[in-house]
């Protein structure tokens, strides 16, 4: 009898342990599920995009006042810098033109466009003593070689465009700087009407 009781007690103990283990497993599982419900994570993917547009840009320098004032005869100079850029890696060019021919005009007199020895070929500045002339040169890494980086001058040709710089589309940071140097000389024997003389120059950048 005692033996039988012991067996029964043993079985009960076994059942209790098994049941306990089952409950532990069950509640653990439920606890995991509950954790998932409480600290749930879900993911969502979105795409972020931006468009970089192809552009070309140019700076717009202020008008140039030549200096010094010409005391009857003499030389006066000034310059302006244009910065050109595009992000197309495309060939580009910079052209200049004047609004009128000659480019520089006063109220009662004009200053002739600089006349090269060979038309259209920039040269070292030289003006006859009996003349007054207005011309330009160009400097910068992309300036046309004919200007020898600002040493050779030529005259404007009215509204005919003159290419002064260009490149293959590889720009330094910030763009390519091109400097145009303006020069006026009134020859020693020239009688030039006094007054203000004005020229209007257009500079155009384009991709090719």
């Amino acid at each position: 009898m005692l033996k039988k009781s012991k067996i029964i007690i043993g079985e009960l103990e076994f059942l209790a342990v098994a049941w306990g283990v089952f409950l532990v497993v069950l509640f653990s599982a439920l606890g995991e599920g509950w954790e998932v419900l409480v600290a749930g994570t879900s993911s969502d993917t979105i795409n972020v995009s931006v468009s970089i547009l192809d552009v070309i840009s140019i700076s717009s320098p202020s008008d140039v006042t030549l200096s010094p004032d010409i005391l009857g005869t003499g030389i006066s100079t000034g310059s302006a810098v244009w910065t050109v850029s595009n992000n197309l890696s495309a060939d580009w060019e910079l052209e200049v033109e004047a609004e009128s021919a000659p480019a520089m005009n006063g109220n009662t007199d004009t200053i002739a466009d600089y006349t090269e020895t060979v038309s259209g070929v920039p040269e070292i500045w030289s003006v006859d003593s009996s003349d007054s002339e207005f011309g330009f040169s160009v400097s910068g890494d992309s300036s046309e070689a004919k200007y020898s980086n600002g040493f050779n001058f030529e005259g404007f040709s009215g509204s005919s465009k003159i290419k002064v710089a260009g490149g293959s589309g590889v720009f330094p940071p910030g763009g390519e700087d091109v400097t145009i140097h303006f020069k006026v000389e009134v020859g020693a024997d020239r009688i030039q009407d006094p007054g203000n003389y004005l020229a209007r120059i257009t500079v155009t950048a384009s991709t090719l």
Partner: protein
Amino acid sequence: MIKKIFFLNIVFLAFFFGQEAGAYQIEKTQDKTEDRFIVHPAKVDFEIRPGQILEFDLIVANRLGRGAEFFIKEEHYKDPNLPIIEPEWLEIETRNFSLGNLEKITLKVKVAVPEGVELGGYYLALVVGTEKKMHQEINASRIGLVSQIKIPLLSRVGDVAPSENISVDFGARKFFFLTGPIVFSTKVFNQSKVHLNIHGEVSIFNFLGIKTAQLPFSLGTVLPGKEAAVETSWLKKFPLGPYWAKVNVWYGKQGQIQKEAFFLVFPIHLLLILLFLIWLAARIAKKYQVNFIIEKKKKNESQGGKN
């Protein structure tokens, strides 16, 4: 009287609201002042059929650091003899506007090609510029400056194949070179009715048929009736022997032209110098050899005498 007033009101309202309302937008941007103004697109190259309309946005952004007046105008692109995109084909929302610093404007531009237009290329440039008023009261010679950007509008109306109207001239600068660099000249003449984007490469093969160099180049956009040329240089040290250079020129969508040129590289001057040195060395060696033989004979004789 009341009827007249009513009628006039209707006419006034019809005139005022009957015009197409400008849809362009001027927006303030978060850009920075950069002392320049920017235009998009930089270039418009498109295909279109007669009767079709192309529409695109023209954006001008002012980053000059000051307010500015802008204008838009058209002009011939490069050559006034090229077929032109006619003014009546082009519609721009506005051609004059003001932008404050860091403002940009987006304008609709339409190109409407009429039916029955001859197929081929048509060209125009849109010029966007800013100008300042000339100040007459300045007591000095003054130069007023206008800065502009020119946007090429390059169109192909209809499906115009360039076909055989492309000619290519290719060759090395000389047939015989003493040494490098070897310079090649490639000229392409576009005799077709449309502009073409042309690029290519020069491949160089030695007498064993082994490719020894590849020199890519680009001629960019070549307008109809125009020629473009490029020189490419092969900078190999001490090339030697016969070589073949082959140029592949690609144009349009799938067009390709190949040309070949043969050239020789032989450093005759170096060979002559080498021959001279060999001759000199041989002469010197012969002289010392003779002296050696004479001395040896003398030595042998003196030894023989002693014995």
